[in-house]
């Protein structure tokens, strides 16, 4: 549950979610649940060049146009490989401490 609590702290911040299929999506973290399902707002695909198999028109969030309606995205927790956090969203000492406490309490 540690990472659930931890991610909850990041709500409202911009994160990049890298999926197991190599797709990376950046957006504002809207919410996260206990299964680490992630909801993003204002999403866009990061670094299109890295994903040549992704066609432009396939991806709704490819072209970012803030004047258009907010694009919401729900990502299944089980397909997430990494979540890249904003540097200012990580207090390493607190995270260290929390992981230790979690390990002890487990």
């Amino acid at each position, binding site marked *: *549950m540690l990472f659930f609590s931890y991610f909850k702290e990041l709500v409202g911040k911009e994160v990049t979610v890298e*999926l197991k*299929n190599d*797709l990376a*999506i950046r957006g504002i973290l809207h919410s996260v*649940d206990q*299964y680490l*399902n992630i*909801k993003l707002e204002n*999403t866009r695909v990061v670094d299109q060049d890295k994903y040549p*198999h992704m*066609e*432009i*028109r*396939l*991806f*709704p*969030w*490819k*072209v970012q*146009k803030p004047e*258009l*309606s907010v*694009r*919401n*995205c*729900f*990502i*299944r*927790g*089980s*397909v997430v490989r990494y979540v890249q956090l904003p540097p200012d969203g990580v207090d390493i000492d607190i995270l260290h401490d929390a*992981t*230790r406490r*979690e*390990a*002890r*309490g*487990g």
Partner: protein
Amino acid sequence: MALGLRNVGEDERNGDGNPILDADDGEELMHVQPGVSVALGNRAADSSSGTLFISTKRVVWLSDVDRSKGYGVDFVSVSLHAVSRDPEAYSSPCIYCQIDRGDNADEESDGSDSECDGDLDLSKVSEMRLIPSDPNQLDNLFNIFCECAALNPEPGEEAEEENGWIFGDEQMNEATEGEDASEWCFSEDLANPIGHANGGHDLAHSVLELQINDQRFEDAEEMGHEGHDAHQ
């Protein structure tokens, strides 16, 4: 619980034309959205309009015209879903779904375009767009999708919680490689519980406590250590 998209044929519809739900599995219908067309892969949207059924387990689209035509995908296979309103992304506002094809994922379907003239192999479809005739329904549909997706965690997800122990063990190994002093504490602590324990269960319990104790000591050491390093 098959992965990926599959056909929902006539025999899977009930008398009302709704998909037959797996009541034994606790499947319940959550939402019915008439006037929805579907586009699979990067094919054009199916010309026939249909009805979207969202249950607690899956998403089913059934053609209004052709009773033998329908597609279904379990929520466990929906990797992500999103609202697409950008005309540059797709001509019509839609719900975009990425589908986990499981074992078929290896066969990259770069050629899904070329499948346009033939029959589409549903097991290779990795994307589905659901286009409601009323775009105002998108947010509502998205929210229902979210709600139902959250009802379908990975099978065996509960096991995740037990990983805490693996984590703890890792930390302990790390810890025992550490300071001599704490190793000494470890050995001394070890002597007592074993001396007192008769049954294997008690022993395990004591060792468990021991690990916890050891970690606590080690933490204090480490913290001081890190702080020290930082000052140098």
